């Protein structure tokens, strides 16, 4: 607090200086006054901004430690901002151009203004550049203002509505005070009695602009996003995301350390750079616009959640929030403090804690908000962190959650089935077992879909395809366990790690080149999340860490490219493709399934939301288990998307998506897995095929051969 007092003292003495100087100068020119006043105003605003920055940084530092290379982060900042962030912003060209003009103009104008007016370097060249910068900023602010005329629902109102005016005040103010510097100001304008009034108005405009742009940047105004956002990019917890990389696996909890908190109970349990990330939010509401739970009327709005976290670590109530609420939950009833629990420990009638549990359990972890966020905020991490506390510390996993977790602990699968019956669906297929062969090319990971009759059809189709392509494969059979995906996303990190470690130990017994699975959730967990649990040495020469995990669509596409599969031409109607979140956004595989469909002779009629922006089926993150009620069902909305594409069949590549979409009543389209489509289209390659693989046997005899 020392710094603040001395700074205040400095402000007072500076003001006194203004009074002292301005009174004898009263008879002098108005420009003299401005020359005196401007440096004082600028440096006062800067000093206040620095105080605000220190206060804000202290708020962030309440969080737990996180290992970030500060220097490297700061060095990478310009590139992360100019390239990675603008890639995301640039999906809306109008806004990205507006932002370039406004933000670029502002940064240039601010620096030049400090030089020209603050330090008094009245160089006409600098002045000219300053005029140019403020003009650019003004033009940008006009576009900002235009967007605010009739803003879409996703944008926050409140203080954000005054931002275009503040931007204009700053740019016009800077423009006008710079005119004399370059000698463009007509002499007559500053003479006479009206000039004083004009100067005062001008000073007022400059104060407003400085107040919003400098003071407000660190004290919590809309411009806070620039300060916090820049540092957030520099100290991001997933630095791998920049430069075109991907980092989607959840971060492991350290269960060895008994003192470490299990998840996040209070805002200060987040790491400091998570808190910083929350503060970076611009409240643009892109997350809200893509969130399936929000669209379904479930009580979740990613934007509000992030704002609630800001309320949490800064302390206070959410009454100041001016965006869309959580559906069905009025704004202003919730409050939080840095050391107060985010979720109320007991059900309270009135005066709630920061967030209600059903808000967290509504999330399907589809990552649409994360991919859409121009500030690259990690919503899903925060949600899972808080879920971990609920499950691991309070034992409050809603609805079927507790039962599913108990089943996973007792039977290694969420349905509580006998682990020995994992291969019952394949009793007639004579699937080769890893335990017998020890070494194969491809390990076929079945996933928990092996217990689900619908997914068993997909699995049978996939086996047929693998045999047609003469792939050397085997399954783990009863040795396979649930990958731990559901447990982890329900917050039960302990059960996840137990399953992961045991699965890794099983995998380590055998030799294979790749794992193929038709379950994108297993695919993601095995490929992106097991890496944290490999023991020392397992990643070495033996096999692990070097194993490759493939989704069946990728693998089938490769088989086709290698000429090992031949398809009959497609005779069905129009087809669309639904991108599973855990294949697309989590693993960036958008192309292989489409390549397979193309190979089948299918022209994919794309849905409006496909690829990166694909809408979730509602089946991820344990959402069907926690089952938070909303106004609509997410799969219904997705099947509506399918209907709008005009397709009679929707191709999927995920057991969850199949189950969710097939559960839609009165659906207009049939749901088929890619493996089923491929299996149906299989034809024996014509004789005299030129590709090197000779095909002497049919699929059936291949099956017998493998078992021999």
């Amino acid at each position, binding site marked *: 607090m020392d710094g603040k007092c001395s700074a205040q003292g400095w402000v007072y003495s500076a003001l006194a200086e203004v009074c002292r100087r301005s009174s004898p100068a009263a008879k002098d020119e108005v420009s003299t006054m401005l020359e005196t006043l401007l440096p004082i105003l600028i440096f006062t605003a800067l000093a206040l901004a620095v105080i605000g920055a220190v206060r804000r940084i202290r708020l962030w530092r309440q969080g737990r430690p996180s290992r970030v290379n500060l220097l490297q982060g700061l060095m990478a900042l310009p590139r992360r901002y100019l390239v990675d962030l603008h890639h995301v912003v640039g999906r809306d060209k109008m806004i990205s151009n507006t932002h370039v003009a406004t933000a670029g103009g502002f940064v240039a104008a601010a620096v030049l203004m400090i030089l020209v007016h603050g330090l008094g370097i009245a160089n006409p060249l600098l002045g000219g550049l300053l005029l140019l910068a403020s003009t650019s900023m003004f033009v940008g602010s006009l576009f900002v203002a235009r967007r605010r005329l009739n803003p879409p629902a996703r944008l926050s109102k409140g203080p954000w509505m005054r931002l275009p005016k503040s931007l204009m005040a700053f740019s016009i103010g800077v423009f006008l005070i710079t005119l004399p510097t370059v000698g463009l100001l007509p002499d007559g304008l500053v003479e006479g009695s009206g000039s004083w009034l004009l100067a005062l108005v001008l000073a007022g405009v400059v104060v407003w602009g400085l107040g919003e742009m400098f003071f407000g940047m660190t004290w919590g105004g809309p411009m806070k996003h620039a300060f916090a956002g820049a540092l957030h990019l520099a100290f991001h917890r997933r630095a791998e995301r920049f430069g075109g990389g991907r980092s989607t696996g959840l971060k492991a909890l350290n269960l060895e350390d008994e003192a470490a908190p*299990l998840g996040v109970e209070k805002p200060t349990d987040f790491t400091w750079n998570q808190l910083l990330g929350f503060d970076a939010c611009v409240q643009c509401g892109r997350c809200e616009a893509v969130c399936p739970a929000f669209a379904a009327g479930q009580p979740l709005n990613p934007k509000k959640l992030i704002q609630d976290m800001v309320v949490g670590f800064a302390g206070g109530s959410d009454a100041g929030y001016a965006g869309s609420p959580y559906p069905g939950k009025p704004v202003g009833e919730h409050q939080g403090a840095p050391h107060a629990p985010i979720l109320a420990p007991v059900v309270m009638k009135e005066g709630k804690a920061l967030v209600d549990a059903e808000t967290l359990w509504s999330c399907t972890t589809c990552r649409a908000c994360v991919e859409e966020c121009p500030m690259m905020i990690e919503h899903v991490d925060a949600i899972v962190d808080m879920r971990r506390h609920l499950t691991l*510390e309070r*034992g409050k996993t809603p609805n079927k959650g*507790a039962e599913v977790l108990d089943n996973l*602990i*007792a039977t290694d699968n969420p349905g509580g089935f006998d682990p020995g019956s994992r291969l019952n669906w394949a009793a007639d297929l004579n699937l080769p077992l890893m335990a017998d062969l020890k070494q194969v090319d491809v390990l076929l990971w079945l996933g928990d879909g092996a217990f689900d009759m619908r997914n068993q059809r997909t699995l049978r189709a996939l086996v047929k395809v693998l045999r047609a392509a003469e792939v050397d494969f085997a399954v783990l059979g009863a040795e396979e366990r649930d990958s731990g995906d559901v447990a982890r996303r329900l917050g039960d990190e302990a059960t996840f790690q137990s399953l992961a470690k045991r699965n890794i130990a099983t995998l380590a017994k055998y030799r294979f080149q790749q794992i193929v699975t038709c379950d994108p959730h297993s695919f993601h967990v095995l490929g992106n999340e097991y890496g944290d649990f490999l023991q020392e040495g397992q990643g070495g020469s033996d096999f692990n860490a070097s194993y490759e995990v493939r989704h069946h669509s990728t693998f089938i596409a490769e088989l086709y490219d290698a000429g090992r599969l031949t398809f009959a031409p497609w005779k069905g109607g129009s087809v669309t493709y639904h991108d599973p979140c855990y294949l697309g956004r989590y693993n960036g595989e958008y192309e292989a399934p489409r390549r397979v469909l193309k190979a089948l002779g299918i022209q994919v009629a794309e849905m409006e939301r496909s690829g990166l922006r694909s809408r979730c089926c509602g089946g991820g993150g344990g959402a069907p288990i926690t089952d938070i009620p909303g106004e609509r069902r997410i799969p219904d909305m997705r099947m509506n998307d399918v209907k709008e594409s005009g397709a009679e069949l929707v191709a999927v590549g995920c057991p969850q998506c199949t189950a969710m979409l097939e559960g839609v009543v009165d659906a207009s389209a049939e749901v088929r897995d890619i493996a089923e489509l491929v299996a149906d289209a299989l034809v024996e390659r014509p004789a005299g095929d030129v590709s090197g693989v000779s095909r002497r046997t049919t699929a059936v005899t291949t099956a017998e051969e493998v078992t021999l």
Partner: protein
Amino acid sequence: MRPEQQQKQQKPGIDVAVLVSIGRHPTTGRARRAEQDARGLELALAMEAELPGSRIDVLHAGSQDVDSEAALRSYLGMATGVGMGLESMTLLEQPEGSDAILPLVEHLAATSPQLVITGARAERGEGSGLLPYALAEHLGWPLVNSLASIETVENGVITLLQALPRGQRRRLKVRLPAIISVDEAAPAARQSAFGPARRATFLVAPTTSEADSELAQWHLSPARKRPKRLKIIKAASARDRFKAAASKAEGKGGQVLTDVTPEQGAEAIYKLLKEEGVLR
């Protein structure tokens, strides 16, 4: 509401001992918290809302290894945010194959809790369901089986709701100390959380263990699933089926005794048992 709650606040809590055993998952046979014992603990935890200041002593008699420790810890994982001294569990450690009854009786007699809650039947070992009765016999305390809920505890008298077949309930007033046993009629146990389970500690109490000589002579073999008897549905209409499912079993003969002395009641029961050939 409020004055009533305050009244309850003033009432002193009671000491409750919950007996827990190591369960066995029916499909995989893995150690877990036993279903019925967990329901018993749930019942005790739910009492906390009614009677703040109650103390729960979780008690286990048996051998301890890595597997069983995880199962025992999962009982304590249920006690999140319940401030009843549930951070630890009393362990009467004894070698495998020992009789649990005597150490339990000794411990209960020494600590003299007012209420003992136990599951009706263990999931491993003998699973004879005789333990509650043996304890009641040794301690000379009343026993209520198949408990549905605890209603009130006032002036040393507990009001209980006992579950009877076909969803019927019977309200009972029992003088404490008493033993109650819990089966599937009691409310399901809450989720067990990892954090509190991991932090839980064990207090090992001294015991005198005695090998179960009878058990040692038994030949144990895995149970075979008994074939299900085919159910012949005689009902012709939905109404008949509903009646068959919902109506009380209509007793043939028998008599209702009211306002009789205990001696007369005992006489009537004795006579019936003779007639039925139970007693010879």
